[in-house]
């Protein structure tokens, strides 16, 4: 071992002789106290799954004297491999948070006051049953059941289906449904939970609309890998924070123009022929033939054989043939004229559209806020890395046409995107445009590119369609949410009106795969399309940061009709914490914290797999609650039995699942398939992954294995999954689907064309007249971009206003904890240099921010690394006085604010007598990021509190302690 050598140039301490120094050293050494270098960290480590955000990392919970002493990442876990983010390490403050609810609550004051009395669980469940049983018997649709950041959607949707209401969804509609649905409809999978960049091989990584979140640790770990190799990162984001701060190139794009920028890149690459022709030929619908006869009922549809399989033009046989024939030779430029009807390849439509000078860099530069030369430079770099740094992995595999390949060809360009590009009214088409760019470069499911995570890829055809037929006393006719293939799958009643309270899958937003949680309260309040009786919500802060038009929503929740009754008659809410929404409930069902409960992170739901492995996980009660609270899912097992819901009772009417843990173990979704895929029982009684009977020891097996189960993807199945029979066969064995399901990527989204056809007058189901033109314009089967500025009155409101969650709080339900609030306890409005100087702002100033919908007065701060026409703030730092057990003078409750007050669920009036929804006309995704504002200096309010300020709500849990001293044992 090398020894320390005192370096030259370090001065000896003044006034000390060497002998004195030696003496001092001796004294010091003698006084160096003995310390315990090996203290015992814990009595026991319990391994479970984090729930401080949606990442679901594995954690080691160190226990001392029966209490949680320390939380760290689990090194064996596939998601985080030992690391843990700021939230995860602060979980201990969540488990002990003073904001935890303590017992069921019944409202005793007016709604919104926060006045409750504690009641017993028996009383609470009897009350809920008394409210819900008549609804189910008479009109199940009068229950609207929506969950927020919950991750048990395969269970909660099963419950809602058994109840029989069509009104169920989770929070995807106001989060990032465009990214999810855009991915599924284009390539049978999406970013984040369904896929990831190939961090180990990518040499160029392009990140759109993500600075801090989605997902948390895996992106940071991946960036770390790229940085360690010196790979290049391009960040496209109006705000240079977080991941964009470490990007080698920052493109501070103008919000809402990502689609235009991406299509300009497509233009450049196409024009230069820098596209992967082989990939397009063999793995995509680019060679599929499209009907070009304007008078035909099938105009614009893909030519298919009698069995419905797509046809391509065969270059050798000179005739249309099925795309999957072993010896087919698809022609990207194919044309076939049959009986006077011309059919041309999808690729020809793409060439005609994207070669247009409308997409030339010079034509889009000003609108996107990116110099034309920079757009070309990026296109050039994409082409260089994709084609000049292409490489091969020596791995044989067999494609679905039966062809054997000696190697896996790689193109090391990876991309990732999230809410920043999707939460716009043009977001779905923008997400499709991004996937089109990836596919043209041949970088999806190849080494170095973007990779799917099992159980994805899964084409639209392998997903359910939406179901909405409810009848008294019966379950719904199928799963609520799904992927429509055309107008025939819309959720409409016989009279053509929307069947769902949120109007999902209606002509207003036909492909709303995640529902529209953000429209539930306003529609229920308006009785449009019908009135409901009970609003039942879980982990959804609708009276605060999870709603547009927050003040309006608070009023809707408390408005009464002429009869003196609330317009939304009953509200049941479940939450673990004293959030703002609690005050608006009539009955509160207190949930547990994440360390006190069972959960399953299921392959049937939102999985935690990695590209190289299928995985699922559990939570289990590593500590018992010290309050009279119950896990919400266990409560649903009880409530389901009390209501006699099929699937929740035995034949004799008794309760089927004692609790959620029992459900996780014993529920059977399809033969051999349950919520967890590890350690199922084989026919011979042995334990096996994938398919099998329920195993009473299953949860214990998960606990013994660190809380998760992992099955590695076989080597020959690691890439090219949609077309790779090694993968397809393995996926069937694991139970992801029942038969192999190879498919082509769909650059041309035929379901969209079917809606256009309807708008053009074809077919039985016809859109209302006022929507016809919009459907025709927006449901283009090839990605388009349109400007959303005019409908947001951009001329009068010249500034973009955005929000994002900080990394240390992203997706974090209980982020209001003692440690994290010291990191992010304030959220000024960040203002770029140009606007800062124009307004003569100084630190400490306040600004009035006005949108077409409302105004706020808030503190400002300068930020230079920001698009010059954009202001932004951290979302959900601001809290309502009285919520979250904070003191009423906490900065979150005084200075903190929400941009939500400026955003309405409807667009400003256009003068056509109609109010149009502020969401994507295709999916209904809430268009948060289309917000436009004016900003001006304002005097500081007196008292100096952000406006609007709301009165305090009574806290059902009091306030937290003055001093927090965390130490156990």
């Amino acid at each position: 071992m090398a020894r320390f050598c005192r370096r030259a140039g370090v001065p000896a301490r003044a006034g000390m002789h060497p002998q004195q120094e030696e003496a001092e050293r001796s004294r010091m050494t003698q006084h160096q106290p003995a310390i315990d270098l090996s203290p015992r960290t814990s009595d026991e480590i319990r391994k479970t799954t984090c729930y401080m955000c949606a990442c679901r990392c594995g954690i080691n919970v160190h226990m001392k004297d029966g209490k949680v002493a320390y939380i760290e990442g689990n090194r064996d876990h596939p998601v985080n491999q030992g690391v843990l983010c700021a939230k995860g390490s602060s979980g201990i403050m969540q488990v002990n948070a003073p904001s935890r609810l303590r017992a069921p609550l019944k409202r005793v004051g007016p709604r919104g006051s926060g006045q409750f009395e504690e009641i017993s669980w028996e009383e609470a469940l009897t009350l809920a049953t008394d409210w819900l049983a008549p609804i189910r018997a008479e009109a199940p649709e009068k229950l609207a059941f929506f969950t927020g950041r919950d991750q048990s959607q395969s269970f909660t949707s099963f419950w809602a289906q058994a109840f029989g209401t069509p009104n169920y969804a989770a929070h995807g509609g106001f989060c990032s449904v465009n990214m999810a649905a855009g991915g599924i409809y284009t390539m049978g999978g999406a970013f984040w939970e369904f896929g990831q960049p190939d961090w180990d091989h990518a040499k160029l990584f392009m990140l759109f609309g993500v600075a801090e979140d989605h997902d948390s640790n895996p992106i940071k770990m991946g960036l770390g890998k790229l940085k360690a190799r010196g790979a290049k990162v391009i960040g496209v984001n109006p705000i240079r924070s977080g991941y964009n701060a470490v990007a080698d190139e920052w493109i501070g794009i103008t919000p809402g123009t990502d689609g235009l920028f991406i299509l300009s890149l497509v233009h450049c690459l196409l024009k230069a022929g820098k596209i992967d022709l082989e990939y397009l030929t063999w793995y995509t619908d680019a060679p599929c033939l499209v009907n070009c006869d304007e008078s035909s009922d099938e105009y614009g549809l893909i030519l298919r054989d009698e069995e419905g399989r797509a046809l391509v033009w065969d270059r050798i046989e000179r005739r249309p043939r099925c795309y999957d024939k072993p010896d087919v030779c698809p022609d990207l430029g194919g044309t076939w004229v049959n009986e006077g009807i011309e059919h041309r390849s999808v690729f020809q439509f793409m060439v005609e559209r994207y070669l247009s000078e409308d997409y030339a860099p010079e034509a889009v530069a000003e609108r996107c806020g990116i110099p034309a030369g920079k757009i070309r430079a990026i296109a050039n770099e994409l082409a260089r890395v994709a084609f000049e740094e292409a490489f091969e992995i020596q791995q044989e595999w067999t494609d679905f046409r039966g062809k054997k390949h000696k190697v896996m060809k790689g193109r090391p360009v990876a991309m990732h995107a999230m809410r920043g590009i999707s939460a716009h009214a043009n977001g779905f088409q923008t997400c499709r445009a991004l996937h089109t760019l990836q596919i043209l470069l041949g970088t999806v499911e190849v080494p170095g590119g973007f990779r799917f995570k099992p159980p994805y890829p899964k084409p639209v055809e392998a997903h359910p369609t939406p179901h909405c037929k409810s009848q008294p006393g019966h379950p719904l006719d199928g799963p609520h949410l799904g992927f429509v293939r055309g107008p025939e799958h819309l959720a409409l009643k016989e009279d053509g009106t929307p069947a769902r309270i949120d109007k999902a899958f209606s002509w207003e937003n036909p492909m709303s795969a995640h529902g529209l949680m953000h429209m539930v309260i306003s529609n229920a309040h308006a009785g449009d399309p019908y009135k409901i009786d009970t609003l039942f919500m879980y982990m959804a802060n609708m009276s605060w940061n999870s709603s547009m038009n927050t003040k309006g929503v608070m009023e809707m929740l408390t408005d009464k009709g002429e009869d003196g009754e609330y317009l939304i008659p009953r509200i049941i809410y479940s939450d673990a914490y004293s959030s703002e929404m609690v005050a608006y409930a009539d009955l509160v069902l207190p949930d547990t914290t994440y360390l006190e409960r069972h959960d399953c992170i299921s392959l049937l739901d939102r999985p935690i797999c990695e590209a190289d492995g299928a995985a699922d996980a559990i939570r289990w009660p590593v500590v018992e609650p010290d309050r009279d609270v119950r896990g919400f899912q266990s409560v649903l097992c009880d409530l389901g039995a009390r209501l006699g819901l099929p699937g929740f009772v035995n034949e004799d009417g008794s309760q089927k699942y004692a609790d959620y843990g029992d459900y996780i173990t014993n529920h059977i979704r399809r033969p051999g398939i349950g919520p967890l895929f590890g350690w199922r029982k084989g026919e011979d009684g042995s334990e096996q992954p994938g398919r099998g009977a329920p195993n009473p020891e299953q949860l214990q097996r998960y606990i013994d294995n660190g809380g998760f189960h992992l099955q590695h993807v076989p080597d020959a199945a690691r890439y090219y999954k949609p077309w790779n029979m090694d993968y397809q066969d393995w996926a069937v064995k694991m139970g992801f689907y029942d038969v192999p399901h190879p498919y082509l990527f769909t650059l041309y989204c035929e379901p969209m064309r079917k809606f256009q056809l309807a708008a053009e007058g074809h077919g039985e189901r016809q859109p209302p007249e006022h929507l016809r033109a919009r459907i025709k314009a927006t449901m283009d089967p090839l990605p388009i971009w349109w400007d959303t500025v005019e409908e947001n009155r951009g001329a009068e409101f010249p500034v973009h206003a955005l929000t994002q969650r900080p990394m240390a709080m992203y997706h974090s339900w209980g982020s209001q904890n003692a440690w994290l609030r010291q990191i992010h306890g304030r959220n000024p409005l960040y203002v770029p240099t140009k606007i800062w100087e124009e307004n003569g702002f100084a630190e400490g100033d306040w600004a009035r921010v006005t949108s077409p919908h409302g105004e706020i007065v808030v503190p400002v701060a300068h930020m230079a690394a920001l698009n010059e026409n954009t202001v932004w703030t951290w979302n959900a730092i601001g809290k309502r006085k009285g919520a979250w057990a904070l003191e009423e003078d906490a900065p979150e409750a005084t200075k903190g604010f929400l941009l939500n007050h400026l955003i309405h669920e409807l667009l400003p009036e256009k003068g056509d007598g109609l109010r149009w929804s502020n969401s994507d006309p295709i999916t209904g995704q809430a268009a948060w990021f289309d917000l436009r504002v004016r900003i001006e200096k304002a005097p500081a309010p007196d008292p100096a509190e952000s406006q609007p300020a709301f009165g305090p709500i009574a806290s059902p849990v009091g306030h937290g302690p003055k001093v927090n001293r965390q130490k156990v044992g």
Partner: protein
Amino acid sequence: MTALPDSTDKKLGLVIDLDTCVGCHACVTACKGWNTQNYGAPLADMDAYGAEPVGSFLNRVHAFEVQPEAGAAQTIHFPKSCLHCDDAPCVTVCPTGASYKRVEDGIVLVNEDACMGCGLCAWACPYGARELDQDAGVMKKCTLCVDRIYNETLPEEDRVPACVRTCPAGARHFGDFADPESNVSKLTAERGGMALMPEQGTQPVNRYLPPRPKDTMEEVDVLAPLLKPVAEEPKGFLGWLDKALEKL
């Protein structure tokens, strides 16, 4: 006045990669979690749920903006904790001998039993790396997780500071700067690791790897080498396509 050792056997410390740090604060709360539970008094939070919450942290992440003369402004995330200086003024200023630098490994520690909370050390530290715990009245600072790195109850791979173990981006590295072959010495040499404010003469041990140059992509015109058009119009393009497909 407390003396420093003339030399230490090892020089343990951190390399922090500013090109990779995304400013996520994971190191901040992992540090808080480990150290409130272990060495000395808990890291208390005063007014924890009130108007001015102030807690003791041994490690904090600061964010700065840099506006180059030309080009876009940049954001730098800058984690900061005790740098375990060779010539640590916080030690020499200590009137009770509570602050000391370990002769074995150079870690600067506070013996809380001997600390009277006078705060002189925090005043002497040019980096602002010490915080007085207002509840216990003792000085708190980074211990380099001295109770982890030699801890025989932990698996060997976990014997690193909590901040290093948790860092999701891998931007933090722990090792012995006295060993030229160590990971931290090599990283410092390869990436031009810098001392923080060397002009203060404190001889800090920790090193920062500077951000790589940013926004260097040159704008290109239509003659970019790889973007030469194969055709201007769709018809011409399909001609090119036909020839290209023939070659496949």
